[in-house]
Each structure stands twice: as structure tokens, then as C-alpha cells.
């Protein structure tokens, strides 16, 4: 399998299947095309990166479905995880 996997063409995040170091130029296959993205952080195995800039409050898409919203602005190549994405479901803390 590729080192960085995009589940569906409309996704704005991809999953890294190796530990990857910051500042390296990573290649992502998207819809048959190759795209390069510079990693902004060290990315552990199994974690996600942004493929494009995502504005605060914008939907984060994986499997062509909404997995949450950006809780702060995210730039392409940045680590995408609990520090910058929040769930929009079962938020008892927001009632």
C-alpha cells in the first residue's frame, strides 16, 4: 500500500502508513494524479495530514464523509488530530 493513503477523492486529509519526519516532501496519489505536500510536523504511523488548507470551522473529510470540524486553521501538510479537529457528535460539554 502507498505510504500516504487517501480513502476517497473528495477527502481533505490522508493517512500516513509510516512514521514520517517534518519538512520532508511527501507524495500523495489523489484520483490518479501525484501531488506533493511538505510535512509541517513529524507524523506518527496511522495519523493524518491535511492535503489542503482547512479554515477554522470547516468540515474535515475522510471516506468522503464528515469526521469533524477544524477547531483552528490547518495548513496543507500539517498533522491533523485531536489538537485541531473536534467532533460534532455527542457533545454533552457544549449543551
Amino acid at each position, binding site marked *: *500500500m502507498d505510504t500516504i*493513503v487517501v*480513502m476517497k477523492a473528495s477527502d481533505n486529509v490522508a*493517512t500516513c*502508513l509510516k512514521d514520517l519526519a517534518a519538512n520532508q516532501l511527501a507524495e500523495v496519489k489523489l484520483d490518479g494524479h501525484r501531488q506533493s505536500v511538505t510535512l509541517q510536523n513529524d507524523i*506518527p*504511523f*496511522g*495519523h*493524518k495530514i491535511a492535503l489542503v488548507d482547512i479554515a477554522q470551522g470547516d468540515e*474535515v473529510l*475522510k*471516506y468522503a*464523509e*464528515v*469526521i*469533524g470540524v477544524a477547531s483552528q486553521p490547518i495548513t496543507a501538510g500539517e498533522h*491533523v*488530530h*485531536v489538537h485541531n*479537529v*473536534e*467532533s*460534532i*457528535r*455527542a*457533545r*454533552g*460539554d*457544549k*449543551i
Partner: protein
Amino acid sequence: MTTFMGYRRPDGRVGVRNIVAIVSAMDNTNACANRIADIVAHAVPITTPFGRTQIGHDFEMTLRTLAGIGAHPNVAAVLVLGLSLTSANTLADRIRPSGKPVEVLGLQEAGSTMGLTMAGVRVAADLTVAASEQTREPCEFADLTVAVECGGSDTTSGIASNPTVGLFADRFIDAGGTIVLSEPAEFMGAEHILAERAVDPEDGQRIRDMVKWFEDEAKRNGVDMRGTNPTPDNIEGGLTTLEEKSLGAIAKGGSRPIVEVIDYSEPATKRGLVVMNTPSAACESMTGLLGGGSQMIIFSTGRGNAIGAPISPTIKITGNPHTAAVMKENIDVDVSAIISDSEPLETAANRLWDQMLKIAQGKLTRCEVLQEDQLSVSRFGPSV
């Protein structure tokens, strides 16, 4: 191949194991059930901390689950223990329609726990000797219900192991079998996809309602569910939100239509893909799956979760190369080559199929060999 060698029971159902179950009707005979099963080979204790002073829906769930496990086709014969013969028979009467040998013993009638243990060992030994005469005969996949479960998930679950299980599920249904998908709280964010696959629109609405019930419960507690679900190990494994986890989790259910939606520990009445309402904790969920009669459980893990069920073989599958290496003593099917090499999902699903068939016919799972088995009947109300 759509046939396998199994144990045909008096009610026509088919087992993949030939177990004598020592079922404790409630908390106060658990220790005796465990002692009897320690002494008698091939006997398995079925225990619960609850039962006594449970009422209404909660008591019915406990009874239905324990009765379902007693009547389960992997069980050849049952010894039910109760504090009194009355409480033992309340449960045993719900197992007897299965036609298998069902014996009862009461602690108060036996006089003491030592008396109950000694009497129970004698009965269980006789049941075990008799059960060992049963032989396997050719059976159809239409006689089999396989549950698909996941635990200790990470992002490899949604990329490798769950899609492999999903492909297996499609083929198994096409071969006449039934697949049960459970844990609706982990449909949250993906429930619209499953709801649209329900043949009966009312079942689609039931799926949405089940997820809403769990979401309302989480909200009622006034907290962000993240940290509980996804769990800390899910998050370390790269899963960011419950929505992401759910979208990966439902891949286990493959792509076939949903023919039925059932409650906790209810048996499926239709063949195909069935959804059961269970909590997300694997132990509680698998106990409900046993109560409903699933003869095998395929358990997909990412970060690694070794829990298994008694009675029904639990087949562990992982697509995480690290887990496959460090936890291999607990893993039955390693599909990590999907990620670390270039194994297609199709060949991974073929390998899962081969193992399922072997395990159905007696090959032991890692959970069985290491006795990684736990039970917990789920409950939703207080005892009174």
C-alpha cells in the same frame, strides 16, 4: 465450498463446538459454577454478577441472554445453578425448548456451596461424557451466524482489517450465511449509510433511533465523548473523532442490504446482514451476540485487544503490522501485508475464509487456547 462439519442439535440448529455449559442464574452461585468447570473437562462456566432483584426490561435482558447462551447451538448440554431450584428452573425452563439435556441444582437444596459443587461435578461429568458421543455431520453455511466485532481500533482498522472482514461478510452472506453487526454507538457519524441499506425503512429508522439513544446518553452526562470513545488507545492510533472511528467500523458489515434489526441477545430470524443493538464495550457486546446465537465472532483489532468470548470461537484479525508482530500470540489472522506489502483485500478475505472454515470445524482460536474469555450481560437499570 458452502458446507462444513458441525454438530446438529435437537432443535435443528448447528454448533461449531460441543460444550457443556455450567450456567449460574445469578451472582450467588458463580463461585460454584467456576469450581465445577475447573474440575470437569470441556465444561465452561457462564456467570453473571446480576440477576437478583433485577426488574422489568433489565431482568428480561439478563434472563434472555443467559437462556440464549444455554440454548446456544455450540452448547451440547446445560447445568443450571440457582440459589434455589425455583430460580434455577426460571432460567432452565427457557432453555428446555432447545431439546438438549438441561439439569438444575439449587444451592439451598444442596445445603452448602461444597454440597452444590460436589453434586454439580457429578452431573456435569455425566453430561460431558454423554455429549462426547456426538459427532460432526455435514451442515450448510445457512446454519451459521457469524458476528463481526472490533476493538482496540486504529486507522488501520478502517483501511485494512475491517474492509477485509466486510469482503468476507459479503461472500458469507452470498453463500447463505448470516452476519451480525453490532455496537450502534460506533455507527455515530456513519448511521445514515447503514440506515439507507436497510431493506425495511422502519429498520433504517430503528438504526437512527438506536444511535440517537446512545448520543443522548452521552449528552446527558454533560461531557465530550472523546477520550471515552474514541478511547485513549484509539486516539494514539490516529483516530481523531468517533465519526472517523464509526466510518471505519461499519466497513466490517460489508455492502449487502440490512435485512433485520434486533435487540440485545435476540436471535436473528432472517438470513443476511443483521444489526444488533449492543453497547460498544466488546465484552458486553459479545455477550449479547452469544445470547442471540452467533456461533463464531470475527474480532478485528488495530492497536490490539485480546478479549474473547466463551462458547463461540473469537477469531482475531489485525491489519496493523506492529500489532501483528508484537501481539501475534493473540492473533489468528494477520492481514498486515495489505499495509506493509501489497496484499489485495481479496486474498486477505480468502485467508480469513479459510481460517473461519477450519475454526468452524474444530481448529482452536488463540482466545480459546489462552482462555481469553469474558462475559458481561449488559444492563440499563438499577436493581431494586
